[in-house]
């Protein structure tokens, strides 16, 4: 059965996506010939969402496996199939029946992502911490010497795609939910053969388009491209030439002048759209993750990137507040449902040819810590073996629908698989494997099906 399915997927992928790309010249001058099929031209990758316990997510045990209370149910019903809890609802909004969090947020997707795609129920994360986990999701490897305030040591998926796939800087976007926890460091690595010139564009919208951005960035003067910007750049190039033997900034992503102008115009337009309340936020926006998703929609609408990575993190409040964790989990699900719905209904160029992948960077502990919240419920950190248990869900063209892989007692897949999976979707799996820097044992998830 497995073999049949695999053959089917490969055949479908070959037929469905035009199979082989036409060779063309990369910016580096190297001839690029796509080594394999493309499953889809766009990937949206959600780093979900700050340390998620299997027990409250894919296992749908709500309060029964954390607080010793008998209520179970699915609070992530845009991602997973399953009935929502029927009692002790605390994760919703405060409107309606008067109880705090007592009104669940209505489901956005008429079909869950699970039914639209493939769910790997039990995946091993190679790290039980945030930065290690995020690095693993983006590098496809675990580097034990990776520092917390240090750029990734191995190339990120952005760099693989730009170097081996010939993508432009504005084809790669990373949208972070803030600038804390070294998140802004993750858009490229320090690897000598890759680095900034192959990096992804990045915004932390809560800052870039928040009050600080309005104060210090929104008033940027718009210079005439020919009469003003052109002489500025010509003078800069002259000055840089004089200094070229000494050094350079080393932090330019290689956006072309046209790309820079487009990004600046996007920023200007976004400030205006924020002021007019036009950012396509999810229906419920009382979380930073929801706001982040709204801006990710804005980036996707404008740039239609080949790869968009969105980092969500609110769930990590679980260190001290279990009720807040449930609310954040429910909202992260809501936000991802909105993101998928927005792509399918508002971006025709990407509607039928985008694959979404979501994985937590790490899980959370089996046993609680001593901190209790306002409901007298215990909080959870992430450091034990249970913190290495996560899920991966993907949906979109050429992803088998309604397929579940693995179970609580049968782990299938690694979080490092996601890099090879994205490389596979966009046609450069061979090149990434040949670079020899992904975690041993990692595979494209398509090869695990």
């Amino acid at each position, binding site marked *: 059965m497995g073999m049949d399915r695999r053959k089917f997927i490969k055949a479908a992928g070959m037929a469905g996506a035009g199979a082989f790309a036409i060779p063309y010249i990369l910016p580096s001058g190297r001839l690029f010939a796509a080594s394999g099929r493309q499953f889809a031209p766009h990937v949206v990758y959600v780093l979900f969402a700050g340390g998620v316990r299997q027990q409250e997510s894919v296992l749908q045990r709500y309060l029964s496996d954390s607080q010793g209370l008998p209520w179970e149910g699915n609070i992530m019903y845009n991602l997973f199939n399953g009935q929502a809890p029927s009692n002790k609802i605390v994760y919703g909004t405060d409107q309606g029946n008067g109880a705090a969090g007592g009104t669940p947020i209505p489901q956005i997707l008429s079909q869950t992502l699970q039914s639209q795609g493939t769910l790997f129920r039990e995946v091993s994360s190679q790290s039980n911490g945030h930065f290690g986990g995020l690095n693993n999701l983006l590098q496809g490897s675990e580097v034990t010497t990776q520092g917390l305030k240090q750029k990734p040591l191995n190339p990120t998926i952005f760099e693989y795609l730009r170097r081996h796939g010939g993508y432009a800087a504005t084809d790669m976007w990373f949208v972070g939910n803030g600038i804390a926890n070294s998140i802004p460091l993750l858009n490229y690595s320090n690897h000598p053969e890759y680095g900034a010139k192959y990096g992804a564009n*990045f915004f932390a919208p809560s800052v*870039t388009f928040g009050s600080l951005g309005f104060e*210090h*960035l929104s008033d940027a003067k718009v*210079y005439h491209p020919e009469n003003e910007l052109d002489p500025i750049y010509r*003078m800069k190039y002259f000055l*840089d030439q004089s200094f070229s033997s*000494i*050094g350079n900034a080393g932090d330019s*992503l290689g956006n072309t002048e046209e790309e820079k102008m487009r990004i600046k115009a996007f920023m200007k337009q976004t400030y205006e759209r924020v002021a007019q309340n036009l950012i396509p936020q999810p229906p419920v926006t009382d979380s930073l993750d929801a706001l982040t998703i709204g801006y990710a929609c804005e980036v996707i609408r404008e740039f239609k990137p080949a790869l968009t990575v969105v980092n969500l993190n609110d769930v990590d409040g679980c260190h001290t507040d279990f009720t807040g964790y449930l609310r954040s989990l429910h909202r992260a699900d809501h936000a991802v449902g909105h993101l998928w719905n927005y792509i399918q209904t508002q971006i025709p160029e990407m509607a039928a040819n985008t694959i979404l992948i979501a994985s937590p960077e790490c899980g959370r502990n089996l046993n609680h810590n001593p901190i209790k919240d306002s409901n007298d419920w215990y909080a959870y950190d992430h450091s034990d073996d249970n913190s290495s248990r996560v899920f991966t869900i993907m949906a979109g063209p050429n992803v088998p629908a309604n397929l579940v892989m693995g179970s609580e007692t049968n782990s299938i897949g690694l979080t490092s698989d996601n890099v090879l999976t994205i490389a596979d979707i966009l046609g450069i799996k061979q090149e990434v494997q040949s670079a020899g820097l992904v975690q041993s044992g990692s595979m494209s998830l398509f090869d695990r099906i």
Partner: protein
Amino acid sequence: MQIFRILIWLFSGSLLLSSCKKEIDPDRFEVNPVELYSSIGEKTKVKSREQYVSILYTNLFQQALSGNRLIEMIDCLESIGDKELGREVLISNFMNKPGVLLPSDSLMRANPEAFVSDTYERFFVREPSQAEISWFKNFIESNPQLTPELVYFAFALSNEYLYY
């Protein structure tokens, strides 16, 4: 401590160099005299983001930036992936603010050589070479729409300005 000392040194240097060549009494103004770099090769260290922003602000506004606003601006830069683009956006915001001090166009065109020398000293803390003066003089004279603002912008965006 070392960084703080360097900041003070550069700040006081930029004040000194931008002060219309008047004699300055160091004791009265509590600024330290500073020597210009004798060669471009003496610049071997990359400025931190804090140094870059505070020195840029001082160069353009001739006054110090408060600590709080400096931190806010650094956060803004952090929130943009392409740092070169981030610097460009920050500079163009500065250029739109009241209080930015720029030489007049007529001053630049009346004596391009002096303008170029002053600009090199202000931003790069060194004298330009004869070739650099010639290139800029020619560029200014052959671009009637060029303004001191655009020249300052290019210097602030240059790689050399990231070093000390």
